[in-house]
């Protein structure tokens, strides 16, 4: 009984799908953002698992990519949360069901 690549990939897949559900089904804008962050984490976990287990000439490239993903995720979280605050100022709500001006 050992811990293999498949275990980590399945954990990553479960986290990704939970994040996807949060991003699609939450009514609060910040809830959607939390789902996106979970998806980033799942992807990072998958990268690191591959970098540990899979044959490669430069195994640590996976870690480099994870550092970039974390950086971009932080930048995106900052921007998205600034948008959330601005959204509240403009539409007086952050309920995504009520921000439907483009609906026909």
């Amino acid at each position, binding site marked *: 009984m*050992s*811990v293999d*690549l*498949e*275990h*980590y*990939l399945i*954990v*990553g*897949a*479960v*986290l*990704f*799908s*939970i994040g*996807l*559900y*949060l991003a*699609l*089904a*939450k*009514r*609060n804008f*910040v*809830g959607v*953002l*939390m789902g996106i*962050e*979970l998806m980033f*984490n799942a992807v*990072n976990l998958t990268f*690191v698992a591959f970098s*540990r287990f*899979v*044959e*490669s000439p*430069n*195994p*640590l490239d996976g*870690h*480099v990519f*994870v*550092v*970039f993903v*974390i*950086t*971009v995720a*932080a*930048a995106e*979280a*900052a*921007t998205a*949360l*600034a948008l*959330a*605050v601005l959204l509240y100022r403009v539409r*007086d*709500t*952050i309920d995504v*069901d009520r921000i439907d001006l483009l609906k026909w």
Partner: protein
Amino acid sequence: MARRPRTSDGRYQSAECRVPSARCSNLLRRAGAKRLMDDTGTIIAFWVLAAITVGAALGVVAVRNLIHAVVFLILSFVGVAGLYITLSADFVAVTQILIYAGAVSVLILFAIVLTPRGDRGNQETFLRLPALLLALLVAFTLGYVAIDTNWAISDRKGFEETASVIGEALLDKYVLPFEIASVLLLVAMLGAIVLVRPEATMEETGE
């Protein structure tokens, strides 16, 4: 005083035995990286951390209060950092805690404080069932691909030290993405500041 011996790649000798005994050096050698992760400690650590991570993620979905959901999200981040450590990715684990649990979480909490009190529930939209179906479909697809593919597993032991190699790669092979990432961060910072500046600045500077 005597100089500490450095190994061939410039690092300090990490540990040595005061008495040159076979037992001590065996202990040090076995404490090095392992190839297959089949010892009890790693197995227990993986299952506990995976349970914490997935449980906390389900907690984010299930709790009714948004702040509690963020706390569960922080727990999930810490769980993922623990999983990185089982994969001997020390630098990435510490970076995860520093940035996700230390900074992104605070950002999310501040955004919750600056948004109205009425919108602090954690309920779902009317699209919850299709979203659930889609999420389950994605989970099963990814899981099936993960189990069914014949991955090229290598014989490599776990990494000894990742930080120096990551640093060299960032400045050698990936220097362009590195510079672009710093510009991206600058743009994101400026954008966030410009977006939330109050509109009353014109009257203030006019006084």
